[in-house]
């Protein structure tokens, strides 16, 4: 059997296993692996390995499930079949996440190459020159791509990098004896961490609302600037997929009051190799290597937010940094004004290695082509999705008409016509073998939103299948409401009530809590 020749739909049905929780599979005494006891000569040498713990030794054995190896393996394989992982689905749905394909050679090497996986973080840097070389090279690549001067690969994610940039902004002003600056400015359609992390870092955050064209108004921005402004943290193109062509005016106005400008380039697919932070005037930026540079993204990590700065700010970057003395690569901890350590050891080195491989595979022209194809794919989808009944495109006029790598769409009309909104469509989409989509960050400025992002990885057939599913769901909303109401029909679980997720008394996040809810022993 293959897909329907005309509609291109597949008869998809996901596995359903009715699998118990791992705790429920526990049989007292059952073991997966029995480590052998130490030989007497080893015990003589190092002791029993337990008494050294002293008071740290726990009084009771941990309450872990006791399950044999084969059963554990079967358990997790079954669970994996009940998910729509990125390798089986057309992963266009998770806009702003840039779910591009990570070539399997990369995955294979970082998982299996002994020169990578056997490196111990505490071994002498002279014995891991290869890995440090890769760090050094990737920093050179990112300098070229951003126009900025130095990078740190320490932050373990995008928001972590933004937080570290906010910390550098504070360190910069303090180093100049300027202690009054406690305000940070961002925009509503920037990534939420551009507001949340400076707030966590102690700044007062001021957010700009979009105007009727979807842009943060320049006059509002100027009204927010003052001698108290420490910096601006801004995403461009914003989550709407709209690029702000006047960005340099914002940056110049911020510089005029003495503020620093940080460019959130978590997702750089729209301009990779085409536009740079430096030319837009920014002092700092960050790239999510797990988005734009192909390292897999999902399950919340491992991730890496590469944080870049102009040379004047180098001294504030986290430690250690990989440096080269002409013959050896070494780890430099000597930075008294640094914001310090933000992550253990070298950070998530496997991500840096994947980035290196990906850039080396694509080359200079390949990076530009990746950006161009992402924008082309998105514009192809844009034309088709716009024609789907019930879909509304916000800010669909004037300059905002051109979108780059993604679009924030709205099912506002569908909701008015049929009562079905974005959550209902999202419940149904998995019946087509497609991962549910990303709606929007909060608050929903665009009502009933959804935000797909095709990246450069998907071909026309993939795009058509994804769009086709959306078309079909729209038709069902208008003509077969019953199909939508009960969806999903082909998944391992049926509709999960949204409100239930928010009601603490209904959820269980630990085995102990679960037993309480279910009245088990």
């Amino acid at each position: 059997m293959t897909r329907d020749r005309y509609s291109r739909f597949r008869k998809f049905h996901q596995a359903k296993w009715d699998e118990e929780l791992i705790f429920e599979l526990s049989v007292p005494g059952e073991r997966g692996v029995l480590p052998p006891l130490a030989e007497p000569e080893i015990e003589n040498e190092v002791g029993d390995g337990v008494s050294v713990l002293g008071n740290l030794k726990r009084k009771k054995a941990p309450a872990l499930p006791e399950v044999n190896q084969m059963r554990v393996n079967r358990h997790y394989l079954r669970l994996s079949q009940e998910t729509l992982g990125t390798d089986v689905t057309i992963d266009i749905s998770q806009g702003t996440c840039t779910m591009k394909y990570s070539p399997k050679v990369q995955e294979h090497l970082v998982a299996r190459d002994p020169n990578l996986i056997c490196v111990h973080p505490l071994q002498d840097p002279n014995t891991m020159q290869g890995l440090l070389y890769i760090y050094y090279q990737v920093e050179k690549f990112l300098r070229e791509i951003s126009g900025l001067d130095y990078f740190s690969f320490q932050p373990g994610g995008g928001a972590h990098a933004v937080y570290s940039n906010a910390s550098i902004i504070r360190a910069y002003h303090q180093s100049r004896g300027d202690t009054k600056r406690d305000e940070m400015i961002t925009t509503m359609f920037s990534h939420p961490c551009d507001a949340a992390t400076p707030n966590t870092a102690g700044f007062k955050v001021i957010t700009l609302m979009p105007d009727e064209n979807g842009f943060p108004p320049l006059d509002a921005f100027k009204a927010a600037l003052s001698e108290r402004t420490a910096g601006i943290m801004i995403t461009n193109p914003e989550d709407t997929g709209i690029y702000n062509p006047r960005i340099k005016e914002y940056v110049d106005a911020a510089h005029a009051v003495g503020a620093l400008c940080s460019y959130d380039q978590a997702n750089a697919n729209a301009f990779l190799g085409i536009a740079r932070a430096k030319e837009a005037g920014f002092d700092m930026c960050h790239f999510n290597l797990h988005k734009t540079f192909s390292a897999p993204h999902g399950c919340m990590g491992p991730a890496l937010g590469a944080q870049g700065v102009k040379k004047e700010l180098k001294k504030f970057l986290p430690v250690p940094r990989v440096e080269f003395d002409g013959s050896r690569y070494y780890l430099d901890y000597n930075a008294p004004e640094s914001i310090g350590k933000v992550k253990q050891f070298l950070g998530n080195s496997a991500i840096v290695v994947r980035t290196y491989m990906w850039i080396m595979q694509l080359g200079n022209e390949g990076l530009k082509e990746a950006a161009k194809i992402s924008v082309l794919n998105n514009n192809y989808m844009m034309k088709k999705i716009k024609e789907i009944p019930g879909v509304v495109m916000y800010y669909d006029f004037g300059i905002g008409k051109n979108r780059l790598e993604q679009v924030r769409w709205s099912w506002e009309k569908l909701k008015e016509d049929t009562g079905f909104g974005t959550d209902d469509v999202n419940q149904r989409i998995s019946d087509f073998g497609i991962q549910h989509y990303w709606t929007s960050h909060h608050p929903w400025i665009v009502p009933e939103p959804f935000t797909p992002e095709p990246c450069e990885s998907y071909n026309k057939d993939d795009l058509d299948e994804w769009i086709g599913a959306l078309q079909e769901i729209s038709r069902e909303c208008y003509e077969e409401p019953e199909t939508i109401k009960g969806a999903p029909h082909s998944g391992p679980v049926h509709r999960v009530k949204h409100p239930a997720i928010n009601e603490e008394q209904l959820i269980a996040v630990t085995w102990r809590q679960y037993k309480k809810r279910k009245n088990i022993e």
Partner: protein
Amino acid sequence: MKKVGVIINPIAGMGGRVGLKGSDGLETLQKARELGAKPEASQRSIEALKVLAEIKDELEIITYPQEMGEEAVRKAGFEPTVIGSIKSGFTSAEDTIQAAREMLKRDVDLLLFAGGDGTARNIYTAIGTSIPVLGIPAGVKIHSAVYAVNPRSAGEAAKLYLQDKVVNIREAEVMDIDEEAFREGRVSATLYGYLKVPELKRFVQSVKSGTRSEKAEILAIAEQVVASMEDNVYYVIGPGTTTRSIMERLELPNTLLGVDIVLNKQLVANDVTEETLYQKLQGQKGKIVLTAIGGQGHILGRGNQQISPRVIRAVGKENIIVIASKDKLASIQPMPLLVDTGDPELDQELSGYIRVITGWQDSVIYRVSS
């Protein structure tokens, strides 16, 4: 078994079809009938009730006779308990109020009503915030946030609530515009009060946003305002649920629709008049805390006329603090916040960009316009 009250304003919506911008007042209604308007509220109610009929064994329906509920309820497949009496063909706002009061007495778990803004006002007059309600949109004017987006959504929302799948309740605005003015082309909306509705944003009208943490945000706003309160300054707390959170944070009695005064975190007076307010502020330093009306944007001139031009001038423009959740601002944008103090010169002075407090150390730059 859950008890559901059903009230239909049978004439709701009749003015709209014939271009009369409302159906309030006997004369208008007469005119609407002459123009050939047909009642539609009943049909829209049946649509909603049919969804509810999916769980009819779990429900007892209490309703008013004939076109005020009974007919639609039966058509949807229920056997209702019918109470009260009406003069068929000649129902009025009084009947709606009377019906709602009787349903309150019978302890209904949810009051489902069909109508428009006028009907919502009548329900508010009768029961206030005593029991949860939900509106089936059938009127010409739907500015109140108590209505579902369409009849079917009303049914779905009521069903979820009655099955205990939604347990939270929020207070939603009852708004109405002056129909006379509206017919002359002017829009002048007023906040009349609040009704309790199930917190199910995707079903309830006029909410553009999807945040599920608005309550936490409002707590953070209250925390911010209270933390920055200065000693020996009179704080004038305007009406609204957002501003009320400040009084709740201070554990002070408050008036939801009135203006309260606080000094050194202690209550000075509740529900003050314009005159009292003005006298209290004489020669004193004061600050005014306001919020915006959701979906609509007024911060001055709707529901807070006590805060008059002379009061504002006494306090000074720079001492106005505006607070609102980002959800609320999302429901207003891209329209500006509005001021209508009755003094055009002052309105002009108040226009421009202001910082709206939206959380702890968190604000949004927003445009104010007259």
